[in-house]
């Protein structure tokens, strides 16, 4: 959801770079989504129900695929139809709304659920928050709705202590909700290290990876592998052998009779919670810190996001669906990630995925857009007042004279 270059001198309300978004969409569709979806569909059919997966996919991405590359949506639909694929719940706009507005968060989760129901005919029962941002409060909020059976979070060392991520847990203060923790070591072996030739385990074969999974048998019930879908074909290019790895994985894992594949909901129903996990402070899956500093680590980031959510009441008061939709698209967490100054000078992953020359440029662009949106809200509010006043006058004229 990239913004176009928007200066303080711009005054129109086309904030998004549709052309760029379309081309990025098509590029990732052809490098990742289409080949990966087709491969997984083949594997599901081949293993006849024994290979199962889950997707966490936002509303904005689905919207973009519908617009620019609809065949991606049909392949997801085909996957949904196999009965071996679960779709998880999350915020429609890949937003950090949980941190800033309960109302907005709930609306976005509802909107996402409706879209998944509409497109794939299933209702999400397991939730994952944007960037795996999580704490006790999130779990409690989900628990009280009764709409979710479980939530996924990062299996960060500091919340686990000596415990293993390979069990089902219960979030602190929840009666029904269960907690699944990402096994970051094994997930990152695929997502980050797969093609790293300096890694002592390179090259990683499906057999080797399956043997690491086997090692957990006897001391764990479930291994949650959770990774960016673009691992397949985009972060790890096809020529690294990532698709071959994926196609051999089910066979290698299933060779051991104790192993099976389950979707998150199946895991939650199959196993009891081993222990309660207390997460008073917010965690995420980002960087080594596993905190929120990638999105809210500097003064620009927190200023931008505070200003954005401060506008919520005005946006809603405008009752203008275009304004609401633009405001929501500005909530996509990437906008704040691009403003991250952490490691900026070292030129690492933060820079690699950043379309801007610098975090400063990204902040300036965002703030210019937000300024314009604020202006539109004010104009809409004024229009609303005028409309009300004129309606009021009409009413008066209908009052009988006697």
């Amino acid at each position, binding site marked *: 959801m990239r913004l176009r270059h928007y*200066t*303080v*001198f711009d005054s129109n309300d086309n904030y998004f770079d549709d052309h760029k978004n379309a081309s990025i969409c098509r590029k990732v569709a052809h490098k990742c989504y289409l080949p990966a979806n087709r491969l997984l569909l083949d594997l599901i059919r081949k293993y006849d129900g024994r290979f199962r997966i889950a997707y966490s996919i936002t509303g904005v991405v689905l919207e973009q695929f519908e617009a620019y590359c609809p065949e991606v949506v049909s392949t997801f639909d085909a996957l949904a139809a196999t009965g071996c694929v679960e779709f998880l719940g999350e915020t429609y706009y890949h937003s950090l709304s949980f941190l800033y507005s309960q109302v907005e968060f709930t609306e976005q989760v509802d909107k996402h659920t409706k879209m998944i129901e509409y497109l794939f005919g299933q209702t999400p029962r397991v939730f994952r928050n944007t960037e795996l941002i999580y704490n006790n409060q999130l779990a409690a909020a989900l628990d009280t709705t009764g709409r979710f059976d479980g939530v996924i979070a990062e299996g960060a060392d500091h919340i686990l202590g000596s415990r293993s991520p390979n069990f089902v847990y219960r979030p602190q203060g929840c009666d029904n909700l269960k907690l699944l923790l990402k096994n970051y070591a094994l997930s990152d072996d695929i997502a980050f290290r797969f093609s790293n030739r300096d890694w002592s385990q390179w090259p990683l074969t499906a057999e080797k990876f399956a043997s690491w999974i086997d090692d957990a048998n006897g001391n764990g019930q479930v291994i949650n592998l959770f990774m960016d879908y673009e691992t397949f074909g985009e972060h790890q290019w096809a020529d690294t052998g990532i698709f071959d790895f994926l196609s051999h994985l089910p066979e290698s894992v299933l060779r051991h009779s104790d192993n099976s594949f389950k979707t998150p909901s199946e895991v939650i129903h199959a196993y009891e919670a081993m222990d309660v996990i207390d997460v008073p402070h917010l965690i995420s899956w980002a960087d080594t810190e596993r905190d929120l500093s990638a999105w809210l680590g500097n*003064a620009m980031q927190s*200023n931008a996001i505070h200003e954005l959510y401060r506008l919520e009441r005005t946006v809603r008061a405008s009752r203008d669906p275009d304004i609401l939709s633009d405001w929501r698209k500005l909530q996509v967490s990437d906008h704040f990630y691009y403003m991250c*100054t952490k490691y*900026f000078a070292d030129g690492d992953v933060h820079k690699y995925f950043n379309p801007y020359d610098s975090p*400063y440029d990204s902040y*300036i662009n965002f703030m210019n857009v937000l300024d314009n949106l604020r202006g539109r809200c004010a104009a809409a509010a004024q229009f609303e007042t005028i409309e009300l006043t004129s309606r009021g006058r009409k009413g008066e004229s209908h009052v009988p004279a006697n």
Partner: protein
Amino acid sequence: MSLNPEGESIRVFMLGWEFPPFISGGLGTACYGLTRAMDSLGIKVTFVLPKKVHGHYATHVKLLTPESRHETETGPPGFKNVQFRWIPSTLEPYSTPQEYLDRLERIRTNHHELFSSLGEGAEHFGSGEHYGRDMYGEVQRYAAIAAELALREEFDIIHAHDWMTYPAGMAAAATTGKPLVVHVHSTEFDRSGEHVNQMIYDIERAGMERAHRVFAVSCRTRNIVINRYGIPGEKVDVIYNGVERNDDRAFSDTRIRSDEKIVLFLGRITMQKGPEYFLQAAQKVLGVMDNVKFVMAGSGDLMHRTIELAADLGIGSKVLFTGFLRGDEVRQIYKMADLYVMPSVSEPFGIAPLEALDHDVPVIISKQSGVSEVLTHALKVDFWDVDEIANKIVAVLKYPQLRSTLKDHGNFEIRKLRWTDSARKCASIYEEMLVPA
């Protein structure tokens, strides 16, 4: 410590143009920073530079005559291993051949007026007769004296800063047989665009060709040296400038604040520095915000045209010209500024943005600058993109969070740009050069 093949400290015969406090631009600052760092590394430096000859009554009675050739004088305080040698000369950095002629003419007139009042026999004393009749002649005269001086000094390496000293460097290399380094702080293409002065270009090229090694202040400059002067890349190294950190850190929070924002241009007002882009951007900024003033600190050959341009753009009352500032005045202006803008058309390096950051002033710098290679926490623009310059100026003035993030990270970042690292790199190349073939 850097040693020559005999196991002694390396001794450098260094040829410069200017040295603080009498400086007119970045070259003096760079020579000072580098020399000071070399001093601290134990490198022995003999620093040769022109003794300024003024065209004013107030100073010229103390003039050294060209007949006295050169003198040893105590230089600026605080150096252990550096000695200064001054050669009286009418050379001034950053001047054109025409300006040289004008200055020489002024000196002659002044001398004539003064000495005719002193009576018979005095008029030829320091009358300017002995200086070169044009800039080229003076550069050659200067070179000859420097070469003569070199014969009486003990050193291992000759290091010449910018074109005016290249002939002196070449002459010293020829008379002593010592290896020569030329240090390119700026080229004729940076200063004059495509309207290069052939005489200066020829001197620059000859110096670079004759030199055993060429130091360039940025990759940008290195590319110009290779592409425009045809110098083989293997003998051209990049030595980035550093920044001398401001001593009065304790007082740095005593910023001068007012409701009015101040955007600063600090540098020579010449084609190279892009003053017209600064003003065009200023006009656009003033179209969307009012409480801002634009200060242009510096002087130069485009000063009058720039003042006129401000008036033509209808922003005359919003643009202040301070003239050339030095020392405390510079510190004062930094304390007042909310933002520093360097819209240079071609900037080999650009030390001023580092100084601005050192004074906690965030910076916008042109992408056509060497300093943009080393600074990440700066806003970068194409010098011609006045809309974008204005967009960024407005953002910095409008959003305190942007200002503070730029300032904090920028101030931290410049701590890595140390003169000692530049001096160390010079020293290691000296050592390479001194290894007997």
